[in-house]
């Protein structure tokens, strides 16, 4: 039978763990609010640039951009957005599962994969399982700067320009609500062309100042960057929400454990008293 001292020690240690997890839960809850605000602040830009891009796609442009071009794919690049820190339940793992599944699917069609990783968790994961990693951006913090992602995006877009990759996928979690985050793998390049009604083919085109090529290159690069940035801040909001839930569960679990251990502690204590009593009674009877 366990002795009381041991049980007491265990209870104390679980209690201190519980304090930590409940503090982390509160931190995550307050950060979640902030990250959600950041996510909403970023939305107007991504909506507007999407509008502009759809206008551009409708325009009868003199310069067809390579991002719209369907090539026979030989190599695809996955931009994987993960969190920097763990303790957020299955958030990253569920995403990696989808990425690996998609990559394996492409592999069967003899399309190679390479990876551009955002967040320490994804680089740790791909370090252990292998994979051709072309770029990494880590430790972006709770309020990432769009400029921190320029480098990574440029590496991917340059590879596309040089013909080293033919497709790009953006893999990140979508924030549905606090309880639900949805891992998602979305095709980034080639961009899906907008549906155009047959009866109304576009006749107009923009005036481009300066050249169409230069402008569209810049604009579409910004568009991809904004999609990547938006998914990073959305993933941040997911991370904090998932962390809050995970820490809440951990705190509850610790509470349950403490209850069980306290019961055990009382049992042990009672048993010890009973034993002592019976010894005294036995001793007295013997005299």
């Amino acid at each position, binding site marked *: 039978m366990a002795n009381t001292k041991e049980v007491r020690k265990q209870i104390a240690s679980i209690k201190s763990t519980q304090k930590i997890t409940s503090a982390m839960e509160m931190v995550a809850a307050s950060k979640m609010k902030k990250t959600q605000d*950041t996510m909403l*602040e*970023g939305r*107007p*830009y991504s909506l*507007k640039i999407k*509008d*502009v891009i759809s*206008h*551009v796609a409708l325009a009868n442009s003199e310069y067809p951009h390579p991002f719209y071009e369907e090539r026979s794919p030989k190599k695809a690049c996955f931009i994987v957005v993960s969190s920097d820190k763990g303790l957020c339940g*299955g958030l990253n*793992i*569920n995403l*990696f*599962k989808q990425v*690996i599944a998609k*990559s*394996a699917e492409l592999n069967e069609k003899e399309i190679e*994969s390479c990876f*551009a*990783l955002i967040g320490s968790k994804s*680089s740790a*994961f*791909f*370090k*252990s*399982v*292998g*994979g*051709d*990693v*072309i*770029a*990494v*951006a*880590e430790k972006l913090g709770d309020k990432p700067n*769009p*400029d921190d992602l*320029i*480098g990574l995006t*440029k*590496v991917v877009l*340059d590879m596309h320009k040089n013909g080293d990759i033919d497709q790009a996928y953006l893999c990140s979690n979508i924030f549905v609500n606090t309880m639900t985050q949805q891992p998602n793998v979305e095709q980034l390049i080639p961009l899906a062309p907008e549906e155009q009604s047959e009866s109304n083919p576009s006749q*107009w*085109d923009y*005036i*481009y*100042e*300066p050249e169409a090529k*230069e*402008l569209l290159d*810049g604009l579409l690069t*910004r568009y991809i*960057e*904004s999609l990547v*940035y938006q998914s990073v801040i959305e993933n941040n909001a997911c991370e904090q929400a998932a962390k809050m839930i995970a820490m809440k*569960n951990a705190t*509850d*679990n610790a509470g*349950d454990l403490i209850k069980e251990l306290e019961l055990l502690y009382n049992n042990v204590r009672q048993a010890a008293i009973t034993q002592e009593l019976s010894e005294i009674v036995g001793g007295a009877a013997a005299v």
Partner: protein
Amino acid sequence: MSTMKINIVSSSEEIYSGEATMVFATGTLGELGIAPGHTPLLTGLAPGPVRVQNGSDEEAFFCSGGFLEVQPDLVTVLSDTAERAESLDESEAIKAKEIAEQELANKDTTIDYAKASAQLAEAVARLKTIQKLRKKQ
């Protein structure tokens, strides 16, 4: 007086949204004045002020470069958060590549699908166990 819609956004916030009778901006090829009904135009913006006139009101915003899209009844300004130079982008790209190379020191580049799925399955199983534990209680 006829007006058009104007939206000024940067990647981290919405700067201005409203009606305007006239918009002035500094394009990469020079000053632009845009009135409602302008023909579709797409241009780069140089760092400089964007002025929005609505009747006699005028507001000015600083824009550190970006893009300007004009539709007959709509002007969209996509502002960059910082000045962008090709050389700067290049150095950022090199940085991202370098981190990748460091991470991958002595690493093979073919992905081990079996290992990856085994690792993920283990992690998922662990999470499931925790969930089951909770349900039992």
